[in-house]
């Protein structure tokens, strides 16, 4: 979990895991991220700075960009990088959740992704979850300020690329781990006038012109299963 606002609970979870091992941290790599322990719960505890994450992410993108020949290949690499994160986040959140039910319904797992997973990774819930009118198997998760593309400007010759492919990989990992195979893609859609009234959470930056829309397309078996469960 690396982002501007990693919710304290996730880091506390990791910290508590470490403390319960009662093993003195051997090296700096073993210690939990953020200032923990002595300070108690300060406001910045458990948070990773946005600039650190943005720097690391830009290096990740550059690393892959120098090794691929096409846009779709780059997107696929970013997605596979996020896939593992998704699986692990699901495992962690399922472990930490107080309620013990496993989500088996489509709407429930989507709500889980757009609220719990988003809160754990980015510190806030996703802005909206919509169902497509044209296709029954398509859903859209909208985030007006995706962290991954905050500091990314896509050059014109890479037209369709969305740097949020990493996040779509995370979503795909979570869904796949929960038993819902889905194809997730990230798109940048222009924000309409007056659609988004909130001030940008990072002060000093102008309001974002594009929002990130994650299109989730479930496979046929998943839909059939969900329809059967409905009855």
């Amino acid at each position: 979990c690396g982002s501007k606002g990693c919710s304290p609970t996730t880091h506390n979870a990791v910290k508590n895991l470490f403390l319960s091992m009662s093993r003195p941290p051997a090296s700096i790599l073993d210690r939990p991220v953020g200032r923990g322990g002595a300070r108690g719960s300060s406001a910045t505890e458990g948070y990773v700075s946005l600039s650190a994450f943005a720097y690391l992410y830009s290096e990740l993108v550059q690393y892959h960009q120098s090794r691929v020949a096409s846009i779709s290949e780059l997107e696929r690499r970013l997605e596979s990088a996020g896939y593992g994160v998704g699986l692990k986040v699901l495992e962690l959140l399922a472990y930490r959740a107080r309620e013990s039910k496993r989500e088996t319904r489509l709407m429930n797992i989507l709500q889980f992704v757009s609220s719990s997973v988003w809160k754990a990774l980015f510190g806030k819930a996703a802005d909206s979850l919509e169902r497509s009118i044209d296709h029954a198997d398509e859903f859209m998760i909208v985030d007006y300020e995706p962290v991954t593309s905050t500091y990314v400007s896509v050059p014109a010759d890479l037209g369709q690329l969305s740097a949020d492919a990493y996040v779509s990989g995370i979503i795909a990992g979570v869904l796949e781990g929960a038993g819902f195979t889905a194809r997730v893609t990230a798109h940048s859609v222009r924000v309409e006038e007056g659609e988004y009234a909130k001030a940008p959470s990072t002060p000093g930056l102008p309001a974002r012109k594009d929002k990130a829309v994650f299109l989730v397309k479930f496979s046929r078996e998943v839909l059939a299963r969900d329809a059967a469960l409905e009855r």
Partner: protein
Amino acid sequence: NILKFCSSRLTEKKTRHAKPTCLLLCPRWSLEMALVSLAVVGRENEPLYLRDFKPSGGSAIGGVAAAGPEADAEDAEDPFGFFSKSEARANDSSSLRHQFIIHAALDRFEEITGSGNRWRTPGATGSNAMWVGLLCPIEDVRVYGYLTNTSIKFMAVIEDGGNSRQPLRESELKSLFASLHDLYVEYTLNPFSQLRGKISSKRFDDDVGKYVDSYNSKVAKVGEKYTWA
């Protein structure tokens, strides 16, 4: 000379478990109700971690006697420890018999936790809710199960007490399963661990060993059993 016979048999490294095969009837101190085997099974029922545990404290007498000829034979062949088995992976070290037992218990696991069955104790939260309980008694062992929300199954094979049929202290086992779940989540959070493969992590092995040893020392008690050794 019986010891020489034993050691020569031991140098045949055909099986990973070179049990001494000299035929002596001797008293062996064993731990009753000890945890002898542990399995972590994944979502598609693929094995992630299978490991046997020899009860450490109680079998000191029997253990030392068995270790004698074996250690000597190995040292003679391999003075520098190039082929030493001490670095062998703890994972997959479970014996075939235990693997069969765990596989059989897996069927029962599926039965209990299958679709629509209400096996959870109502109102339980967290790791208490994931506790499945006694799966089935097989021969002289009992198998207990624990199911996480992500369909990862933990199974523990507990050896039955021979003489005294004391009921198993389930609370100890529940907390053991909770700690194992802890360890498993910590293992998956490691970005370098394989996504869906066998668990091969020394830290995981060490910590599991520690937890199981503390469980065995808490719960099991030394009992006397006469066996072929």
